[in-house]
């Protein structure tokens, strides 16, 4: 009997330890939110001039935030190309409005459009045009262009290639060119020069657009690695010396080399905000947000903020091209 009792003590102690740990974590909850509200408010005050009264409202919203968050929730789903814009705009908007809760998810353009048709989210994001068939499923669909974008062809910095033509890209992606040595000036030192193809998964808007414009609706090689986001393609190309990939220009950073495109009339055009803006860069497109009917409430405020000069500045800061400028 005695041993039995000590066993109970032991289990109780173990459970109590777990409980204490979770209490500690939960303790951080209250601390965390009370700490964070003034922090975000002051950040907002310095960052956005529109949020000047934020410090004053911060203490007031502190008490209302829990109640208001359930009423003021906005959901966005879809293209990973649009995602960084949506998230950055959401961050800025939420700093100015501490009671708003904006939830952003990826998935891909197909998911974004489908979610609007099924009325699952407030705003769908897409980097591909909405097809006629998709429009037919939802007559209320309201498509808003929010930014311009270019798709950059990227390689690993180790590759000596300087520029590339769209025909060469097509040859590489349909599998007829398999070695960097068959491109003049291209090559990866200390390797067998075999090209590693990296592309996007089958429901990506970026892939749809790439297949239309670059591949001209011919088939991609089956040996292409399929990644399910811009970030994953970037990371694989950065990690793999022989790789080639394509991503939105908003994702470009110094871990990869973005290749200038040689056009049919011999111009060499660097993928950049400027060349996408004047439409000289050949692989450019629009980015969309989609709602069911005219947006209302928080969705409307959010989109208006995105389309305002302050919102378009965020678009530029994220590496994309602002509208009508």
């Amino acid at each position, binding site marked *: 009997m005695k*041993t039995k009792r000590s066993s109970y003590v032991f*289990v109780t102690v173990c459970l109590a330890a777990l409980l204490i740990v979770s209490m500690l974590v939960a303790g951080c909850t209250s601390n965390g939110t009370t700490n964070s509200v003034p922090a975000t408010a002051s950040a907002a005050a310095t960052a956005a001039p529109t949020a000047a009264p934020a410090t004053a409202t911060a203490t007031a919203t502190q008490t209302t935030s*829990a109640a208001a968050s359930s009423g003021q929730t906005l959901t966005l789903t879809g293209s990973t190309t649009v995602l960084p814009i949506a998230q950055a705009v959401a961050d800025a908007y939420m700093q100015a409005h501490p009671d708003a809760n904006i*939830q952003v998810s990826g998935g891909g353009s197909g998911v974004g459009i*489908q979610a609007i048709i*099924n009325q699952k989210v407030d705003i769908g994001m897409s980097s591909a045009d909405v097809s006629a068939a998709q429009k037919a499923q939802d007559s209320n669909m309201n498509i808003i262009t929010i930014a311009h974008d270019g798709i950059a062809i990227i390689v690993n910095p180790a590759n000596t290639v300087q520029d590339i033509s769209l025909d060469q890209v097509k040859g590489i992606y349909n599998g007829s060119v398999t070695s960097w040595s068959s491109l003049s000036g291209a090559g990866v030192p200390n390797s*067998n020069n075999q090209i*590693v193809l990296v592309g996007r998964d089958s429901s990506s808007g970026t892939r749809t657009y790439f297949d239309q414009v670059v591949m001209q*609706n011919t088939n991609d090689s089956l040996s292409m690695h399929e990644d399910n986001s811009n970030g994953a393609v970037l990371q694989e190309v950065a*990690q793999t010396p022989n790789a080639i990939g394509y991503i939105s220009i908003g994702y470009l950073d110094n871990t990869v080399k973005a290749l200038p495109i040689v056009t049919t009339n011999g111009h060499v055009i660097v993928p950049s905000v400027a060349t996408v803006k004047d439409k000289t860069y050949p692989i450019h497109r629009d980015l969309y947000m989609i709602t069911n009917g005219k947006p209302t409430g928080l969705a409307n405020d959010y989109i208006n903020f995105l389309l305002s000069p302050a919102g378009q500045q965020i678009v530029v800061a994220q590496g994309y091209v602002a509208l009508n400028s």
Partner: protein
Amino acid sequence: MVSRMKEKFVRSVFFLTAFFAVIVVAFILLFLFRDGYSIFETVGVLNFLFGTIWAPAQVVPSYGISALIIGTLLVTFGAMVFAVPLSIGCAIYISELATPRVKSILKPATELLAGIPSVVYGFFGMIVLSTFIRITFNIPSGQTWLAGSILLGIMALPTIISVSEDAISSVPREYREGSLATGATRWQTISRVIVPAALSGIAAAIILGIGRAIGETMAVIMVTGNTAIIPNPVWNVLSSVRTLTGTLGIETGDVAVGSEHYHALFGVAVVLLLITLIINLSAVAILSHLRDGRGAGRAKRSWLHIPAFSPIKDKLLPYSRIVLLALIALMLLATGLWEVALIIILAAAVWHYGGDRISRRHIEIFAFGCVIAATVAVLAILAIILGYIIINGLPAISWDFLTQGPTDLGRSGGIFPAIIGTLYLVAGAILIALPLGVGAAVYLVEYTREGRITKLIRTGVDLLNGTPSIVFGLFGFAFLVLFLDIGVCLLAGMITLALMVLPTVIRTTEESLKNIPQSLREGSLALGATQWQTIKNVVIPPAIPGIVTGAILSIGRAAGETAPIMFVAVVFSTRFLPTSLFQPVMALPYHLFILSTNVPGSSTNKYGTALVLLMLVVAFYSVAILIRNHYARKARG
């Protein structure tokens, strides 16, 4: 009269909880077939199964899954080639050679390996293993079949080790003593007597390990390259491949509901489910055969005895070893490791022709060396993975990281909502699974004799246990999110995770109920207590530690899973904690998956998230192991 009514009522409640597992299996099958059926109709079953091109995005989409099936089988086979020698060596060491003290460290260590979440393995594989393979073999890309196999092999290690260690330990002592008394060395005793006697158990362990490897999703997505091709030549382990689970993991979240592609994915899920069902049922059959055989001298009967095949089998058996060796040698040749292949072939030749001339003592030393090397390798793997994540993750951990919401897509800010989201998910899952699971176990142990219905229920539980986690995710998506229309939310995640851990709860509860001596029950009944009173007051209280252990193990498993919740419960980022069950949440494993695959430039937070997730799950497992060991000691002393 009233009390009899009550007894009947209680009994039927328990029956319902037990039958729940069967209902769930039926529902999973029903919903997968319902959504997958149309692809079999439009494409045709044969074209679907044997078509070699999976290209839903092509101008003319093509849905042939043979490349995916072959990819799945190849990756699993490779994983077993890697895992089986290591884990059997390790099991032999733990059960036959280790001192009790070493054993008491080794066993929990291998069990911790089971606790590491698959997305953490994937993360490690993506960053460390695939780069290592690319550089070592000087190939263009390290995202290969080999990387997938090694990773899945590591993940299957704990399953195979613990089940085969049980099998080896349960070989009767007389076998050992008899063999040693005839003058055999310890190694001869192990290799000629003990391992053959434990062979069925080891076979079951391997099959369970295969089931684990086939059903794995996240780790596979992150390291295999996901190219839907059949390797050329087929033993080329440096080719990248794509598995059935990987296809589901990548494409399901992105597909337009109701499209042909969507139905094709459910078709893939049906095929995957059928493959795992076959594998798990055969493991169950072997294990139950083992249990039956134990009573009546079981040494002779082979575990898969089909009379017509036995002459063929007898003829083939001597060659099987050569065939296996040849296959492995071919694979090594393909990787360019021809030196290793040569050594293996030479060693095999020496063994075959000169084996008798080497002294028994040298053989024993060599064999024990191999066994110890296997054990050290397993420990080294554990140390490397844990060390890598701890060293890189510690700098990220700060008070703000643990208590703030994410900003800039998780590149900066903290992971607080993800930690809480995960805790909510597992708390809900265990609240649902615990009553159902305990009820089912009580019904199976206390209320029935073995019969047709219990057999059906047990089969249901076994099938549920073997169902890949991604299939639960698909089911949750098709049934909860779309059919019941509750949307992507916390509740859907809780239910999906609850279904997934239900078999673990049932199994562990059953075990601890069975360990309660029959005399206690009889004593209680003899004093005039009703059956329900007996169960409530006599049987359940001493079983509680076992039940708690099972619950904690389930919590650990649920906390680390990504695949089941990625379509049903989670969002990239949200600022506040959910205020109702119908809101989506953030979760640690999904956040790690997103950070490591979708968000470039998030390195510190990525490692920090991996570390927090690892610590959380390991904490749950350690508590479970502590409780169990404490009781095992109590039971013995």
